[in-house]
């Protein structure tokens, strides 16, 4: 082993240029993999955590778009019934006994918080500016337990909402577009045409344009009042769990138990999660392509080496090296190239990632970040080195096997 290792080493160092070229292929592949995977998973984690901080783990609501059985089908369940173009029933979005349901869910120890609320589309008017948006009537203390609102306040305090029945806490993006500040009064118009004036008592920023640019919070009773609904009118029950992975399992249970649609965060954020999948596919396909190219490079170089070294192989065999010894000599060379190339690739990947992490990045309206999010997880560096060494081992194996089968007589005969 020591001897085959020494011979492999001598071969590698006696043609440094070839060795270096073969190594650079792996280095490039692994470096790119690290840089890409660091940025892509950084982006993934960021979108995921943003989504998780702003959307509930489970949302219970009355899904009025759900198909319902027509009266004909109820009367004639076995027959073939055609109902053409059924109109939606004038159903209310109200979740009945919402506070009671919230109370039951709250008893579950896996639940961190439950926030019954009602939301509606509204128009915001301030001076000549009119903007569409949403308003959520919430128990602000409960909502804070769910989303850590306190930490996201840019102006005012969440308690202001409790003290002032005509107060709202507005998303910073929305306020900026309206050119309104805390203390200003904005006019709110509901889809039913009811108009009221509310005072901005605070500004929040989630870091997601899709929320900050359209949403405001008010107390439950305020929103019930502007929607002209009764005291029990609630449209959504938002739930946060201690472990969000449980949502997928719990949601169907709730749906069955309370007979309302219970949607988990994965379903609600399907498009975002699709982005995650696409980024993963992109990362791995580009990296694997680069590594395959590097693998072919190693395969070629090792093949060439073996053709050049036919005489040496024959000589070694004549001196009593077995086919296995000869194979070892060349496998060691490819592994050494792979290992050195991969390690260098990790270093370069780390350097690239650090550069990317420093690059200024304007998230614009959608994201409030200043730099690209980059992951520095050990896991990816381990994957990288396993990737690199495996590719080179595979690429090096076939030529090495060929070397082990060289018939010394054919070479020595000349």
């Amino acid at each position, binding site marked *: 082993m*020591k*001897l085959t290792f*020494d*011979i492999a080493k*001598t*071969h590698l160092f*006696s043609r440094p240029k070839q060795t270096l070229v073969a190594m650079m292929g792996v280095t490039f592949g692994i470096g790119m993999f690290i840089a890409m995977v660091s940025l892509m998973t950084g982006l993934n984690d960021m979108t995921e955590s943003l989504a998780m901080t702003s959307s509930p783990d489970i949302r219970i609501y009355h899904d009025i778009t759900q198909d319902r059985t027509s009266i004909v089908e109820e009367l004639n369940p076995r027959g073939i019934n055609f109902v053409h173009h059924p109109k939606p029933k004038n159903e209310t979005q109200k979740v009945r006994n919402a506070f009671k349901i919230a109370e039951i869910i709250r008893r579950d120890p896996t639940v961190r918080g439950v926030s019954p609320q009602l939301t509606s589309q509204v128009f915001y008017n301030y001076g000549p500016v009119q903007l569409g948006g949403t308003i959520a009537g919430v128990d602000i203390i409960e909502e804070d337990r769910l989303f850590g609102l306190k930490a996201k306040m840019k102006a005012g305090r969440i308690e202001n909402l409790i003290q002032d029945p005509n107060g709202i806490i507005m998303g910073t993006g929305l306020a900026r577009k309206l050119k309104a500040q805390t203390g200003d009064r904005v006019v709110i118009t509901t889809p039913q045409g009811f108009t009221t004036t509310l005072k901005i008592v605070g500004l929040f920023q989630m870091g997601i344009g899709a929320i900050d640019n359209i949403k405001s919070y008010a107390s439950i009773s305020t929103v019930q009042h502007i929607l002209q609904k009764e005291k029990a009118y609630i449209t959504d029950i938002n739930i946060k769990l201690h472990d969000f992975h449980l949502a997928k399992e719990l949601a169907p249970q709730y749906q069955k138990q309370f007979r309302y649609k219970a949607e988990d965060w994965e379903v609600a954020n399907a498009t975002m999660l699709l982005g995650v999948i696409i980024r993963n596919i992109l990362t791995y396909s580009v990296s694997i392509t680069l590594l395959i190219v590097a693998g072919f490079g190693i395969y070629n170089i090792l093949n060439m080496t073996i053709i050049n070294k036919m*005489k*040496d192989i*024959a*000589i*070694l*065999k*004549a*001196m*009593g*090296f*077995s*086919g*296995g*010894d000869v194979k070892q000599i060349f496998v060691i060379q490819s592994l050494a190239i792979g290992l050195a190339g991969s390690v260098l690739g990790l270093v370069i990947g780390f350097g690239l990632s650090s550069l990317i992490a420093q690059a200024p990045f304007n998230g614009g309206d959608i994201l409030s970040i200043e730099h690209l999010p980059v992951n520095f997880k050990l896991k990816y560096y381990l994957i990288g080195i396993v990737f690199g060494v495996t590719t080179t081992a595979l690429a090096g194996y076939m030529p090495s096997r060929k070397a082990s089968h060289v018939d*010394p*007589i054919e070479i*020595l*005969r*000349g």
Partner: protein
Amino acid sequence: MEKVLRTHKINKYFYDPVKFQVLKEIDLSVNKGEFLSLVGKSGCGKSTLMYILSTMDTDYDGDLEIAGQRLTGKNQNELAAFRNEHIGFVFQFHYLLPEFTVLQNVMIPALKLKKYSREEIESRAYEKLKILGVHEQARKQSAKLSGGQQQRVAIARALINDPIIIMGDEPTGNLDSYNTQLVFDIFRELTHVYKQTIIAVTHDGEFASKSDKVVEMSDGMIVNTREKNVALPTS
């Protein structure tokens, strides 16, 4: 007389391009300490026989025995180990490994055998180089040596594991007359002083005539065996 190598009815065929018998009923026996020359016209099958005797070619009929061990039928790994320990081979084109130094080249078969420590192997290699008169080149890259020097290094390498037998396929075929004489003297010294056994294929009539035994081949057969009286003065 102790027999070091013995063959019994070795036959070999080539099938490409047409089937033809290249070796016919080869019965050969070599004594310990004997310097045997194998001669014959080009194409008569000398090299083919040498590859079989050296255990590198296993595709033949008949029996091969070296040092009392029957080698016919052993697998490639066993044969490789046997070659490493018991057979030294010298080629026509002084095949040294070019990236290694002279000393390393000589050491490699011994490092493979692992009978001695690295230090011992190094000093033994140096000794062998000294016998061949090339010890001053020990640290040089092997490719930097002249042809005659390289061939002497190759002989030192063949000696390193104290093999039972040294085989050479036209070991002087590529050398000038001075170096040929040198190699011949070395071979004779090895057989007479060190009781080493040598089988060498040669075209050189003079070289052959000075060896202990001359085996002549023609058309794949041994046609003549001349033995020289060892007691006679040899130079």
